[in-house]
């Protein structure tokens, strides 16, 4: 396992809330895909049924944090400053995927964009733009 792989696995394993949602991640080179398997307890609207919007937001925020852990070793876990989420389609009872793109990783601030999709990557169900306070290790 690469260093980035080790950091990713240990991050997701150590966060109780990531386990509560059932979030996993796969790394291919430097490209990470986060995976949220469907489970009954993530449903928000039982009529449609649809995944809770808050869960999709939480999943995308966790994807951004995971991508930051892959990008560089950090002295401590990044802190979320703000997020802005757009909901495009309702989350169906299917596996959800997300990929994050770090627009800038500075000495203190990181800007990250995330997209979540289900069956079709080109038809995302939600997007997130977030700012994070980071502390990259200086080595």
């Amino acid at each position: 396992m690469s260093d980035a792989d080790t950091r990713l696995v240990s991050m997701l394993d150590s966060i109780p809330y990531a386990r509560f949602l059932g979030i996993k991640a796969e790394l291919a080179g430097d490209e990470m895909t986060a995976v949220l398997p469907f489970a009954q307890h993530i449903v928000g609207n039982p009529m449609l049924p649809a995944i809770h919007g808050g869960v999709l937001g939480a999943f995308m925020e966790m994807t951004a944090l995971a991508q930051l852990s892959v990008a560089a070793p950090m002295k401590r876990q990044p802190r979320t400053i703000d997020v802005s989420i757009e909901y495009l389609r309702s989350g169906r009872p299917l596996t959800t995927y997300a990929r994050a793109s770090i627009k800038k990783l500075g000495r203190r601030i990181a800007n990250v964009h995330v997209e979540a999709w289900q069956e079709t990557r080109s038809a995302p169900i939600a997007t997130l733009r977030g700012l994070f306070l980071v502390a990259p290790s200086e080595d």
Partner: protein
Amino acid sequence: MSDHEQTKLIATAMNEGSPQAKALGFTTLEIGDAVALLKVPYRPEIIGDPETGVIAGGVVTTLLDHASGQAVHAAMATWTSIATLDLRIDYMRAAEPGLDVMARAHCYKLTRSVAFVRAVAYDRDPEDPVATGQATFMLDSSAGKKAGANLKPSRAPRTKTGAVDQ
């Protein structure tokens, strides 16, 4: 049945009937006049930073979304389906480990198709927030959609060009 009683029933249905709200243990402490006050109890499963025991930002996101939705229902005279269009959250500080988190949401504007909501999450004092949120909701979001609509296979993407149907 008064409007307030009906709103309380909607809040209970949204907490008990929504598996995610139930899994997180959401309860509605107050509801009425376009305002909803909800609580999520602190527990180890929802920790986001294992070093400090602070709850995950995502839990606050879900609480703010849920509280905002209930505030929209509390602002409407009759029930209609709603869906979050967008949600923006500023995280001011970490919630204190061990404390329950509250969210107070206010639907300050309703138009025919959109509702606007502001919300604050806090642990001890609403004047010292953990996070603030701003959300918009679409009203009558499942117009024409029947229960179980999401269980059917998805439609093929609509063609955007001027294809002529034969």
